[in-house]
């Protein structure tokens, strides 16, 4: 009897710990998504309300109508992710291997800017890139930008903003995976006459793959859904799918289309993650990303 009740208690205890958080996620993450699926299949208009009608056409209409914004979102996010990788990899490498006793200071410096408000940082880029700003004037001086050319309200500005805002999501996982590498493996490669470049390519890089994978995901996913950068640094010609979802929901009150667009975006991302994981050969998705 006693044994049985003890065993029971042991198996209940984890659920007691997990319970409250699980309930919160169920109520405010799972149920909203299920509800969202329901909303996406409704038809109607903002004045008379919406009713459920299995309206799958909303999905096909949404894709054909907003194909451009979808492709732009994926394109901007992918470009920003690659730029983040190019900027962050040497930075993470330096921090992990060459910073010595300044390593913690370097980490602090990488993280610190991101405690300045996200929207305010983007507003600051608005100022830096603005038409009467110092940067544009210098670029015009050296002829990199034509005299009528602009920086603000261009594709470049939006991509640069996204790259800037999601850089730490790339830099930190990269740093963690680089720091974990057993340095003796690299020394061994060099002892066996690998040139520094070969050692990097055949030892360091493969061992840093989990960090590259996690960093790319953590950058690409929020970048795909972002609408702040496009709204503040671009014009409607640079609007991404996030801008469409936001305006459909908040301004136009076309809930079914907004819901359908959300699901299409989510499935794009999940499929993308899957393919990416296959390509990089990450064994356990959640493990690599977390």
């Amino acid at each position: 009897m006693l044994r049985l009740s003890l065993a029971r208690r042991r198996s209940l205890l984890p659920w007691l710990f997990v319970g409250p958080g699980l309930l919160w996620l169920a109520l405010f993450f799972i149920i909203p998504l299920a509800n969202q699926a329901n909303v996406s299949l409704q038809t109607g208009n903002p004045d008379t309300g919406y009713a459920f009608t299995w309206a799958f056409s909303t999905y096909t209409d949404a894709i054909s109508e907003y194909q451009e914004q979808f492709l732009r979102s994926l394109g901007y996010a992918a470009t920003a992710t690659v730029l983040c990788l190019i900027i962050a990899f040497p930075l993470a490498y330096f921090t992990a291997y060459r910073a010595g006793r300044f390593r913690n200071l370097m980490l602090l410096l990488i993280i610190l800017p991101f405690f300045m408000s996200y929207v305010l940082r983007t507003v600051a880029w608005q100022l830096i890139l603005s038409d009467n700003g110092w940067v544009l004037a210098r670029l015009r001086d050296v002829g990199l930008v034509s005299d009528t050319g602009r920086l603000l309200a261009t594709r470049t500005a939006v991509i640069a903003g996204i790259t800037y805002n999601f850089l730490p999501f790339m830099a930190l996982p990269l740093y963690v995976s680089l720091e974990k590498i057993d340095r003796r493996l690299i020394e061994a490669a060099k002892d066996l006459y690998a040139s520094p470049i070969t050692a990097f390519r055949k030892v360091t890089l493969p061992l840093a793959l989990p960090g590259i994978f996690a960093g790319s995901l953590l950058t690409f996913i929020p970048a795909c859904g972002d609408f702040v950068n496009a709204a503040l640094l671009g014009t409607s010609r640079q609007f991404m799918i996030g801008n469409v979802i936001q305006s459909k929901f908040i301004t136009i009150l076309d809930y079914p289309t907004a819901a359908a667009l959300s699901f299409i975006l989510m499935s794009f991302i999940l499929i993308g993650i899957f393919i990416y994981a296959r390509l990089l050969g990450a064994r356990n998705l959640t493990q690599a990303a977390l």
Partner: protein
Amino acid sequence: MRRSLRHWVLGAWSVAALFYLFLPIFVIALFSFNDNQGRFNFTWQGFTLRHWADPFANPDLAEALKNSLLIAGLDTLIATALGTLMAVALVRYSFRGRGAVDMLVFLPLSTPEVVLGAALLALFLTVNIGTGFVTILIAHVMFTISYVVVTVKARLEGMDRHIEEAAMDLGATEFVTFRKVTLPMIAPGVAAAGLLAAAISVDDYVITSFNAGQTTTFPLFIFGATRQGVPAEVNVLGTMLLLVVLFLMGANVMLQRRLARRDANLLHRSVSTATEPLQAR
């Protein structure tokens, strides 16, 4: 020679990257001292301390910041408590459905914020709950829990399981072991998770914009102000927040150092306090 050249390039690249990271921060801080005339704060017009003298001059801005800080405080308390418990269960126990719970924690992190925000708003509209302070808080807890779980899990995974086993071998119940051994040992991780939750909450624009109703938060105020010109007081408050975070991070580092020093005799002390009731008997 080539080796030192490589080092030099790497160092220069890192310095340039840090410059890129800090450029907007310098601009924000600098323009908090700008003696701007009119509503726009886009061109340098001279040095003044007047914005720093009265950062709460704009009542809407003061209200927005108050909301943000209150929501971040409450969010930190709730999300850290719920997330820490989940992390402990996920690392310390094997139970049926653990994989599913792990996945559920991972999913909000891999969902774009715009989708999370829109889905929540759709739910609130469906069940007819008015959006405002409470719905912002609900949303923030929902998406910060996962960050807490991930952070605390990382700390737990690097921890010696034997110390807890020793406490239980000496007769401490699971609950007492959790309170007197596990919790003190993961304290730095919990503190870091709380800081992270607070930072994400204060900073969030996307999810909040969907669920705010008539309530404004600091990021919402700034975004709304971009069209008419962001007041310089925003720069002052942003810079102040950054300094507060810097202070808190410093405090956390000090705490971790003290805890690390304590770790040496933690085994002995925690086991003996955990079995206190037993010894008394």
